[in-house]
């Protein structure tokens, strides 16, 4: 993709094919000879895990769809049929349900990595924005997937979230009715959510291909945050170096994944979703899946419905503007002593918002959620633009090779520029 390929097929058939459709060369250039910065740490292995999870979710999902019935009268029973009567059905379902959580664990690590090392900064703006689109699609897919088992949380979660659109002035009610396919969450809603839940992952695959393409045009960022200057000195071939490292990290990730599937499969779920949906009984607390909790906390922190909806969507949309909100010349937080502190506070704030999202919206919880929401937006809209102007970064290594050598301690680092 980036023109690094020096691929020459060994066989005559290979050469014949390559001159007609150079797809093997494309693969070779992207996943074998592709140069990766030699100083990447293990935070750069989450991309491989995310690719794995996307494929795993699609495969388990396709098998589950063979046995699932998208109808309000049969959906809940068909999920139990999968758990009881389908060979390895319990495995497919637990792998798919926990797989969604693992997918989000990996994507949050990947995003915090980008935030820490300034991976969104030039020339990676498009790469980053594609990532934000992937995140949005993932959230939509996960939300609709959670509705399919048609438990109490499925139904009431769908009701709460679709109702958010009714806050839009003038057309809100009409949009909500259109989304539902009726005047409440009912069979038409379940049917379209199933259809879209099957469609969106394939759209995700498309955007992921663009994301990888954009990555391979601009090259990977790295912990030093300096660009590759000399391919020989600064990089290593993707295969075998990155392949081996990613594979090792992926196996560790699979151990965690397997732990959830086989030993604590319901830990991340909610007991109420084992009660079949009942439009006449509202659960005591309507809670979304854990990966939506920080955004749910932001939604409820704002006293007005429309304001809450705007803040919630804004909290994700703001990410797309990071490349221009961050005014710092230095990418990596390793050389930004002040930003580093604000970054770690941001991580704690995000976790805190997640905790508050699971608590009832009353008393001290609301006040705390407002304080943390203020920091969430302040971090992006005030701290990032101002810090770039006032912070004095530490000396940045001139090249990636220097950064590696400095870490080993045998060469004195040259100050940058």
């Amino acid at each position, binding site marked *: 993709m980036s023109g690094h390929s020096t691929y020459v097929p060994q066989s005559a058939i290979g050469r014949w094919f390559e001159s007609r459709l150079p797809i093997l060369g494309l693969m070779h250039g992207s996943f074998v000879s592709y140069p990766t910065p*030699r100083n990447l740490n293990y935070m750069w292995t989450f991309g491989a895990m995310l690719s794995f999870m996307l494929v795993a979710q699609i495969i388990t999902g396709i098998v589950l769809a063979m046995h699932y019935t998208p109808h309000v009268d049969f959906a809940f*029973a068909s999920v*139990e049929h999968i*758990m*009881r009567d389908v060979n390895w059905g*319990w*495995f497919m379902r*637990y792998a798919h349900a926990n797989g969604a959580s693992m997918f989000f664990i990996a994507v949050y690590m990947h995003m915090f990595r980008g935030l820490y090392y300034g991976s969104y900064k030039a020339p990676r703006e498009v790469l980053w924005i594609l990532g934000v689109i992937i995140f949005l699609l993932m959230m939509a897919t996960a939300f609709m997937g959670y509705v399919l088992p048609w438990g109490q949380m499925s139904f009431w979660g769908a009701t709460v979230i679709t109702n958010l659109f009714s806050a839009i002035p003038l057309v809100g009610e009409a949009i909500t009715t259109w989304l539902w396919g009726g005047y409440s969450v009912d069979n038409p809603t379940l049917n379209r959510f199933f259809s879209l839940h099957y469609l969106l992952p394939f759209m995700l695959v498309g955007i992921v291909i663009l994301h990888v393409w954009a990555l391979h045009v601009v090259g990977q960022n790295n912990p030093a945050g300096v660009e590759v200057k000399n391919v020989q000195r600064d990089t*290593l071939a993707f295969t*075998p*170096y990155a392949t*081996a*490292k990613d*594979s*090792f990290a992926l*196996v*560790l990730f*699979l*151990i965690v994944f*397997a*732990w*959830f*599937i*086989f*030993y*604590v*499969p*319901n*830990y991340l779920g909610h*007991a*109420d979703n*084992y*009660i079949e949906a009942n439009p006449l009984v509202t659960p*005591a607390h309507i809670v979304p899946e854990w990966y939506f909790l920080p955004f749910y906390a932001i939604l409820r922190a704002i006293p007005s419905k429309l304001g809450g909806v705007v803040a919630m969507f804004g909290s994700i949309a703001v990410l797309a503007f990071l490349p221009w909100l961050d005014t710092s010349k230095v990418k990596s937080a390793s050389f930004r*002593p*002040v930003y580093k*502190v*604000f970054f*770690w*506070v941001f991580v*704690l*704030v995000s976790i*805190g918002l997640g*905790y*508050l999202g699971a*608590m009832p919206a*009353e*008393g*001290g*919880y609301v006040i*705390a959620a407002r*304080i943390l929401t203020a920091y969430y937006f302040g971090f992006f809209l005030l701290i990032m633009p101002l810090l770039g102007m006032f912070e004095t970064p530490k000396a940045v290594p001139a090249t990636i090779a220097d950064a*590696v050598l400095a870490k*080993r301690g045998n060469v004195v680092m040259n100050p940058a520029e």
Partner: protein
Amino acid sequence: MKTFKSIFTAALILGAAVVATTSANAAGEVEKPTRQSWSFGGPFGKFDRGQLQRGFQVYREVCAACHTLNKVAFRNLADKGGPEFSDSQIKALAAEYKIKDFDDKGEPIERDGRAADRFPKLFVNSDAAAAVHGVAPPDFSVIAKARGYSRGFPLFILDAFPGMAYQEHGVDYVAALLTGYTKPDDLNWNKYFPGHAIKMAKPLSADQVAYADGTPTTEAQYAKDVSAFLYWAAEPKMEERKRTGLNVMLFLLVFAGLMYFTKKKIWADAH
């Protein structure tokens, strides 16, 4: 730098304060169930067949009058990893139930149950059940997973971790509820039920069900046995799952070790 350290400390203190006040708010609700020791808890847990069989007996003689078990088939009671009744026992049991069906002329009939049938419904729908009982008694197929309680921060985090893993909130709640009728003058008051006023009057009392294996016939024992049975009904593949999990874990740990040394060898010439 010092100012930022203090900002950081301030944030930590604020966070701790939030947690402290919020957990104080949460207190004063219903009492939390006691954590029982179950044979099926933990990564190597297995059901106690005798307990499942006794639990089924309690279900059948006490609970089944009002509570269905729609997702469970009679044949499941003979499945490996369950109560493991014999095939002839299942055949005899199924035949005691009447199943609504149609004959070959399309006329509605009632026939004897077969092993492949699921436990029949008691009412056409939940409205009919509610008309008789006041509220519709919940189906018991997944009740042990459909109930639960939170152990609160920070214990709920530990519940996920190896060595401390705790998945039995639901079954502990059910066992606690069945023994939570602690006001002898009010049989609809329950210590563990949210709001305490429960429609189901005290269902169990000592010597109500005759055990054949000499197990004490106390209320607490009945509650434990039937709860264990309901956990199996909700997770009939649990033994298969945990057994498979052990194989998967052993494979992955060895594989991880091999990958670690492979990666190390490949990277040896890179730095």
